[in-house]
């Protein structure tokens, strides 16, 4: 298994990728604080993972997501350890979407973010239900309580809570990553394995035309 991961990872991070993946992990661990400092009511803690997914590829994004959560646990938030499967799926999913060209235009980015939110909710529901009993000590607990009080099971309630908040967070994350990537100059973009995930045919035409 390691050999496959290593080979794919090496291919994706060739060139500038390795320090970039490290930068993205650090970004994951700090952008939540930045959002909090600006009092923006979203987690936005997977911007780094999605950025890696677009600029490097799915395997690096799996690595970036998993390491982010391991380090978050090491830095004092042990609960993050249990959500490694969630971030790994987020990394893989957005990496595949990026490969299919979903990050080339905003009208694919928005549905992409919503889909990503649904996927994240499906994966995180059983973890939140069985490990945490649905209580995460955050504002969204109220939603879980509401869904349970109207007669849903624990798993269902956590899942409903997930699909009512994750898609918003992930769509905003996707839009931010899309805007950041569109903002990159070609000279930097060409150093990344995933540069083509961002370039639109129109952009390429305009380049070759000039």
């Amino acid at each position, binding site marked *: 298994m*390691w050999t496959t*991961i*290593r080979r794919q*990872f*090496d291919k994706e*991070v*060739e*060139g*500038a*990728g*390795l*320090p*970039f*993946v*490290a*930068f993205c*992990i*650090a*970004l994951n*661990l*700090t952008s939540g*604080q*930045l*959002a909090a*400092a*600006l*009092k*923006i009511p979203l987690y936005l803690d997977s*911007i780094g993972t999605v*950025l890696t997914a677009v600029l490097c590829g799915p395997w690096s994004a799996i*690595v970036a997501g998993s*390491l982010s959560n391991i*380090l978050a*646990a*090491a*830095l*004092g*938030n*042990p*609960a993050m*350890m*249990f959500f490694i499967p969630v971030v790994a799926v987020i990394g893989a999913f957005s990496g595949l979407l990026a490969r299919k060209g979903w990050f080339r235009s905003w009208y694919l980015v928005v549905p992409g973010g919503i889909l990503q939110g649904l996927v994240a909710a499906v994966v995180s529901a059983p973890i939140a239900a*069985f*490990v*945490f*009993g*649905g*209580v995460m*000590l955050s504002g969204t607990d109220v939603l879980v309580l509401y869904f*349970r*009080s109207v007669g849903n099971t*624990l798993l269902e309630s956590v899942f409903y809570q997930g699909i009512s908040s994750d898609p918003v967070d992930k769509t*905003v994350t996707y839009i*931010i990553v899309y*805007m*950041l990537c569109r*903002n*990159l100059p070609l000279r*930097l973009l060409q*150093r990344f394995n995933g540069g083509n995930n961002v370039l639109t045919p129109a952009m390429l035409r305009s380049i070759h035309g000039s």
Partner: protein
Amino acid sequence: MAHSINDKLSILIFFLSIALAGPAEAALISVIVLLITRALAPPFRPLAQASRRRFLPVFLSLVLLACLMTIVNGLLLQEGEVFTVAGLSLYEGGIRFGVKTGARLLLIATSLLVFFGSVTIPHLASSLQHAGLPTQIVMTVLLTVYFLETIPERITRIFSAQEARGAPVRSRVDRRVRSFLSILAPLILSGIVESIERGTALTLRGYRAGTRLEFEGGGESRLSGVGKLFIVLSFFVFILAWVLP
């Protein structure tokens, strides 16, 4: 200071298996054992001042979480006998489930806290490499530590630079989201430029993917063969107890 990380890792796995497969009582006893070990046994004392300071608040918030879980489940899982405490009618089945989940969560989190508190990230990386994790991933961990140390300061600098240009960082939510971008974008642009230069610098110093990284000694193992055997056996017992109904 060198204590074998692999020993600590085996002990961590031991406690995690109790948490996942053992009864609530065993989990709660383990939490107490962990707290005592942390206070008395040098290998499990926190290495950094920061993790020492963080431990108590995180631990207490976990206890709070566990209590909350018990009450919430007692209220909502309507099984078994009902008894009333301070005006709340709680169900026995719910309490049982809540205590079990709470104890499990408490044990998992405490053992992780103790483990990570007593291990430095470079040591962790070295043991990961020893355990066969690709060196590229170990390298990534080490580089992340570097970026983690520098990013907060950079965010502060960018924050002041943009505020000095009149960025509305204390305005309505939609304008703050836009300011978020005007702070995130310089951070990411400069991060990308720096990553590229760092990547170049590494290859210019002969680094190739797969080069084994060298670490200072990982510490002597203090667990005897019997101890390790005990851990492995109990791990399987707990797993079996979990799989068999």
